[in-house]
């Protein structure tokens, strides 16, 4: 079975999960005690007001009817209207999503680029000072709240040193006309990177630390395998062993972890967006929650889950690509 077939299989598997997520987001907003209308209108609204709002949001229909409508709406790409912003939820999400995407992908890039070599070096120099240092860094990394790292970075680089801006992000593909102080696309890119640096470090540290830990332990595990010893016994150079015989095998669990870390990265992104006042999906969901904007809560939750699911499927496919046993359907995996 080739990769294409495996991909298809993996997508098929995702359908029930996706349906489950949709159901849960629906239940979150609809089956929980408490009347959203009440919250919306404040104390003692008139009967007529209540009825009109109910009708407007379809709340006068029975639960199953609303569920079916919700599914149909989603199938049409309609996530309802935000109560707070009074615009379609999809519009709002489309507006905010790119920044969150940028933030997350950049932090992931940062995390992987730092963690993988660090983990490998740490494993290679096991129990040497480099290893100890890497282990301390990764231990602290997984134990530190990302928002505090953000605060500390702001404290040092913004307030004390004044090197970086403290708020918001600039999209690197934005029109130079919309970006203050930029006249060319290169300027925009520079501004974007300038804005991105601190949030990326703050958000990426946890991922970086987690990946370093798993990279190290997997490398150690693989380096003790018979096939590595065998390669050594056939005179393969230590560097080649590390690069070829150990690295690829060690990446398998690392890939899985990278996929799963996406969930905590999304949580971190919400906090980091709050710390750096980035108007992305994170601040959007917070606004939705502060204002009990149910359609918006449902919509953002759904999009976040979708994002996570896509990430996991991508890592699975990568996994299958790296490990022939998966795509060939071997049971040993």
């Amino acid at each position, binding site marked *: *079975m080739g990769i294409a*077939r*495996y991909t*298809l*299989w993996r997508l*098929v*598997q995702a359908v029930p999960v996706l349906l489950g997520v949709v159901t849960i987001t629906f239940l979150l907003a609809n089956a929980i005690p408490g009347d959203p209308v009440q919250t919306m209108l404040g104390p003692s609204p008139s009967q007529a007001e209540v009825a009109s709002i109910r009708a407007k949001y379809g709340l006068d229909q029975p639960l199953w009817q609303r569920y079916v409508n919700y599914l149909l709406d989603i199938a049409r790409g309609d996530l309802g209207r935000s109560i707070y912003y009074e615009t379609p939820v999809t519009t709002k999400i489309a507006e905010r999503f790119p920044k969150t995407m940028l933030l997350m992908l950049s932090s992931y890039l940062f995390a992987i680029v730092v963690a993988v070599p660090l983990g490998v070096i740490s494993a290679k120099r096991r129990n040497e000072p480099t290893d100890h240092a890497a282990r301390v860094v990764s231990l602290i990394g997984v134990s530190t709240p990302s928002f505090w790292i953000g605060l500390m970075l702001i404290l040092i680089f913004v307030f004390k040193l004044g090197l970086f801006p403290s708020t918001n992000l600039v999209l690197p593909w934005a029109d130079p006309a919309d970006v203050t102080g930029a006249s060319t696309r290169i300027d925009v890119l520079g501004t974007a990177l300038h804005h991105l640096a601190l949030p990326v470090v703050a958000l990426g540290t946890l991922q970086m630390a987690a990946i370093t830990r798993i990279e190290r332990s997997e490398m150690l595990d693989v380096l003790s395998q018979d096939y590595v010893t065998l390669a050594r016994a056939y005179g393969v150079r230590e560097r080649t062993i590390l690069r070829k015989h150990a690295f690829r095998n060690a990446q398998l669990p690392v890939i899985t972890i990278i996929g799963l870390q996406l969930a905590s990265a999304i949580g971190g992104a919400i906090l980091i967006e709050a710390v750096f006042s980035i108007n992305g999906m994170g601040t959007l969901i917070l606004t939705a929650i502060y204002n009990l904007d149910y359609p918006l809560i449902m919509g953002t939750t759904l999009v976040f889950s979708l994002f996570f699911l896509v990430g996991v499927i991508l890592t699975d496919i990568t996994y299958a690509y790296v490990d022939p046993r998966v795509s*060939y*359907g071997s049971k040993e995996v």
Partner: protein
Amino acid sequence: MSRLGDLFGTDDGEYHPDLPADPDVGEVLLRVDGLTKHFPDTGALGGLHLDRDGDGPLPLSVEREWVRAVDDVTFDVKRGETLGLVGESGCGKSTLARTILRLVEPTDGAVYFRGRNLATLGTSALREVRQDVQLIFQDPQSSLNPRLSVGRIVEEPMRAHGMLDEAGREERARDLLEAVGLDPQHYNRYPHAFSGGQRQRINLARALSVEPDLIVCDEPVSALDVSIQAQVLNTMRDLQDEFGLTYVFIAHDLSVIRHISDRVAVMYLGKVVELAEKEELFENPRHPYTRALLDSIPVPDPRASGERGVLAGDVPSPVDPPAGCRFHTRCPALIAPDSVDLTDEEWDAVRRFARAVDRREFAATDAADIRERYFDGGFPRGEAGEVVKDAVAAIERDDWEDARSLLVGAFVAESVCAREDPEYETDPEYGDDRHFVACHLQRETDQTY
């Protein structure tokens, strides 16, 4: 065989006319009759599973495949004897042990223990019977719960069957530890403090605690070092004499089997291919597989002469075992189909060639080369010769699949070995028990008797 009739019987204490009602009078303690176990080869999502090579739109299929782990196995075990069960990995011997004890549900067939069919017993009755039939496992380490003390482990079966009171159980546990050659003082120790051989002794003590009649031993010594193995084997024999035990002893090591067994059954791919008394089986093996097995074992004596008929190829998949005699795909003595009229030498050459093509053992694609290599310079005559020539032509145009199907179709599929399930009994040269051989070569032998 009456197994189908019994299959639907559900009465716990079903009486079987073949067996005496009073177990102590009769000889047969355990009768395994047509026992079969097929496992569903399930993938993810229950019945739905990944269709690797299919070409439907979705990589899914709902078809179920079955692993035929044990297929129609029949034998008796007599009170006080040791029946050795030998076979290579994957032949189904461990599954057979578990199916006898109904740790896995049999697909078909019956297991009579003292006249009661274990295959149809209800849960509570089965639990009762398990007092009399015990099992010992291969891995002495993983068969002991690391979180229980040795005393607890040995007492557990007694507790389960409500034997004795707390103090009585402890006393008996200590006695048993001593009986299997351990220090009763170790009653409170945990399994990790013991060596492999000692752990297997703990297993023995546990099995003995409920005074069983029958112990099924699944590779009890194969994880042990040779010197320890000998100690445990000796202890097992002593215990057999002392407690009047009956063993079904499963192993892959023919030397161990020869040492411990009274009668031996050889398994291949889910079937018993030969069963006879020990001396008869080892000195007068009739089944080509048994012979190959015996030839393969390295003898611990440099002066022993040993020419070995190497068994080519791998064991076929139990999901789709060969029809007829399951060994026929590897058998060095495959019988020529009646339609094929060749001399023995010619048939040998054809068979060898067909095998080589089947496994693509050679790279040559030149007719002359093949003729030289497999047919000593001349293809056989007649119809058979034509088939061979066609096949060689197919190889020359690199169509191995075609060549294979030509040869298999003409020579293998037509053979009696691929068409009929062999079941023969012959008179032994050694001992006085019957000698069961599942090989069509016995046709002629039987006729001569």
